[in-house]
């Protein structure tokens, strides 16, 4: 009936002549009812937080006792206020919420995450992380492949909200053969009616017909892309319209914080009960080649406060044990700071996994600050090992198949 999946599986190329015009309105509300989190086999939700630009891992998880750290960072080192995790390592002073989660056993930190032959280009390295392939490229994202898998085993809700991204673009991790949705606001996510002298004229039906006809008459792949995208949008917006009025945040999100707004939108979408499986938010600004400290301090503060509110909000709505948050960044920074009180592109960095599903603690090995590769850290844990651990240990998905290889499963998660 709803042909986007069939169509996308063909790789965006052929257009099916004579395929039935989908009737998308009928199933939106029905799907909403059927996809409450309790009704699905595991109902587990993964929220990815992308720290775009290359987060300075050494000033996030800080080896405060290491003389080499102090030597390499004459102006950037954190001398005071480090939130100690043990006698070697501590969190940046602004990560107080994460420290509280650590104390509650709900924060797992994987140290020294990277991959062989690190690429120091933002975009090449992002693509590697997004596709979980050291070639990168434009194929499906690693979470997109998970969504494909859910579809294959019949666990997908019948609308485009199973994969949600806060913002105006669908991130490459979520590229898939199933529809996913970029969201900026649930309230504006709808086709506005025409206002005719104060009377609202609904235009969904005629506009849908325009796009339906253009699906085959228009040039490939645009005709079909426009038609299927409009159908997804209207289906998701109609499903949301039945729910969005009821959400009340159960936490106070920081004002004027884009990452807080993004996470609040994700919480609202999750709480709507329409069956979000994976969500993506981005905090940008980590490419701190110069005058890093004030910028990086502020970014970590924003991140920490937004995450604390998000976790509290979800717990207040009964989703506390159904959501896992994972951070990632395309690379860390150079060990030695540069001449402009910043850091150039580097390699390995820690990843954070947050929430009730994790077994708190430190995992992997902190890389040496003296045995470097061209000034950069040598990674100790492959990022695909973390992905595999999440796919297999949390999402109950076949990690080897989805990642195209066998990676060590880390005991990061409760059963």
């Amino acid at each position, binding site marked *: 009936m709803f042909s986007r999946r069939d169509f996308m599986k063909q790789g965006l190329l052929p257009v099916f002549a004579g395929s039935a015009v989908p009737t998308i309105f009928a199933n939106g509300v029905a799907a909403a009812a059927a996809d409450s989190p309790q009704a699905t086999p595991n109902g587990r939700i993964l929220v990815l937080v992308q720290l775009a630009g290359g987060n300075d891992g050494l000033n996030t998880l800080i080896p405060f006792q290491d003389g080499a750290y102090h030597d390499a960072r004459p102006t950037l080192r954190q001398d005071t206020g480090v939130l100690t995790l043990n006698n070697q390592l501590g969190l940046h002073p602004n990560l107080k919420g994460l420290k509280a989660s650590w104390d509650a056993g709900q924060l797992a930190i994987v140290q020294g995450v990277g991959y062989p032959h690190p690429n120091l*280009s*933002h975009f090449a390295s992002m693509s590697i992380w997004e596709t979980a392939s050291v070639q990168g490229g434009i194929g499906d994202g690693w979470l997109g492949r998970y969504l494909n898998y859910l579809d294959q085993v019949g666990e997908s809700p019948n609308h485009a909200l199973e994969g949600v991204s806060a913002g*105006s673009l669908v991130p490459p991790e979520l590229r898939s053969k199933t529809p996913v949705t970029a969201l900026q606001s649930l309230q*504006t996510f709808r*086709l506005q009616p025409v206002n005719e002298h104060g009377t609202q*004229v609904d235009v969904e039906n005629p506009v849908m017909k325009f796009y339906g006809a253009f699906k085959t008459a*228009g040039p490939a792949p645009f005709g079909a892309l426009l038609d299927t995208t409009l159908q997804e949008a209207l289906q998701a917006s109609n499903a949301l319209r039945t729910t969005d009025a009821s959400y009340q945040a159960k936490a106070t999100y920081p004002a004027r914080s884009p990452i807080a707004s993004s996470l609040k939108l994700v919480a609202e979408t999750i709480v709507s009960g329409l069956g979000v499986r994976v969500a993506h938010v981005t905090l940008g600004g980590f490419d701190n080649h110069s005058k890093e400290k004030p910028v990086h301090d502020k970014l970590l503060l924003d991140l920490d406060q937004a995450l604390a509110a998000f976790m509290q909000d979800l717990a207040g709505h009964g989703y506390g044990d159904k959501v896992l948050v994972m951070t990632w960044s395309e690379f860390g920074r150079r060990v030695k700071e*540069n001449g*402009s009180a910043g850091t150039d592109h580097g390699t390995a960095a820690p990843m954070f996994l947050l929430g009730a599903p994790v077994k708190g603690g430190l995992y992997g090995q902190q890389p040496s600050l003296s045995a470097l590769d061209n000034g950069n850290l040598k990674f100790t844990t492959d990022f695909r090992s973390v992905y595999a651990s999440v796919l297999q240990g949390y999402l109950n998905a076949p990690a080897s198949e989805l990642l195209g290889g066998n990676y060590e499963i880390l005991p990061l998660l409760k059963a």
Partner: protein
Amino acid sequence: MNMDDATPSSSPATRSTPIWRRPVSRRVVLASGAAGAGAAALAVLWKGTDLSQILNRVRDLTHAYPGALSDPRVRAAHLLRRAGFGATAADVDRLAAMTSTMMTQSVLDYQKTSNATLEGKLPTLDLTSAKGPNAGAVQAWWLQRMVQTARPLEEKMTLFWHGLLTSGLDKSGAGQMYVQNALFRKMALANFDDLLKAVSKDPAMMVYLDTENNRKGKPNENYARELMELFTTGIGHYTEDDVRESARAFTGWTLKGGTQLRYTMQSVFNARYFDSGQKAFMGKTGNFTGDDIVEMLVPLRATAERLSTHLFTFFAYQNPEPEIVRHLADTFQQSHYNVGAVVREIFSMDAFYSAKAYRALVKSPAELTAQTLRATGADAKGFVASANAMAPMGQVLFYPPNVAGWPGGTSWINSSTLLNRINFANAAAQRAAGSSPARTVDQLTATLLDGNVTSTTRDGLHAFATAHPDDQAGLLFMAMATPEYQLN
């Protein structure tokens, strides 16, 4: 005209004929001294921003091409959408009466067209206060330029450079972005090496990619890396050592005055900060400057092919055939890296007017917004509101998502952006109530959609007009809510 009869025949050109069916063979160009020993002489000829060298070589390469668009108005409207931001019915009529050669020339030869009317309408930006102009005011100012310029290609190329040689308000100041915007406009079709040398010293760029902080003994790799990865050769043509060494060559340029560097509009060379040591770059060693690095990067074939691909993708369609890239890269190298010469070749190619090119680009939010405002009209408030409305469509002027610019293409379209694009057209049509560019369905589709829509769309528009005879704004919106309108 229905979709079926307007869609050009797709029978391909014969295999032995290049895609663009050049009446002047490459051999003739080479024989005229454009390669080998003659290249240096020609390089002098191409120096500067004088368009006459470009215009003298415009040829009609499109006649009798079996796959080409045949309707003169469709060809004119297609060119005006790609080379600019859409057109009025009068613009289309004017170009439709020309030969292809004249059309290309009229688009390229914009320096002869006065923009005084636009300049008279533009708001005055406050460039003298310490913090420079308000970012929203600069965004609205540029959008107004796109909508009201008499030189569409100049503005379109400015948008192209903004998306390739990126800087952004997340680091650079609004005044700096304004200055950079003026540089892109002035050098819109200039020689690429000249443009890159200017951009390397441009205050917005120096802040955005940290060259301001790149000093002798304290190199900062940011600009050097992106210059190679994104602006010239692309990845795979340089080493990490090339990044580190060329960063040293770009030392010495600093911003003048003030601790608030994002508000500083002037760059100066300070020999004290320049690393005058030997640098080993791409197999050569010397006391290189940043300009030297640019002069080594721009002649590389990888640069020629990459920029040619970017330009063709921006103007014609994605994934150009290798022979098209080869031809454009040859043009680039034989014209001393002249961007205008490459753009001229693109607009002269049959491929540009082929079925493959027609409606084969998704309108960027800038294009959609400017074209919509051209159709509906806008006042000062409308430009500010519309510049803001671009964010949920996925593009904020002067604020690219990262140094790689906007990914573009099909990534402009997802469920969220598509609803916002349609809703924007709705709001613009409401705002323009009563000033619709046309009153009948046929006039509207002719002006906005090449008169080329599916019969379903045509019937739907007629049905709306019949059911809502007084609602001009509603009908205008319905024409802009079509899938045809989403494409360029």
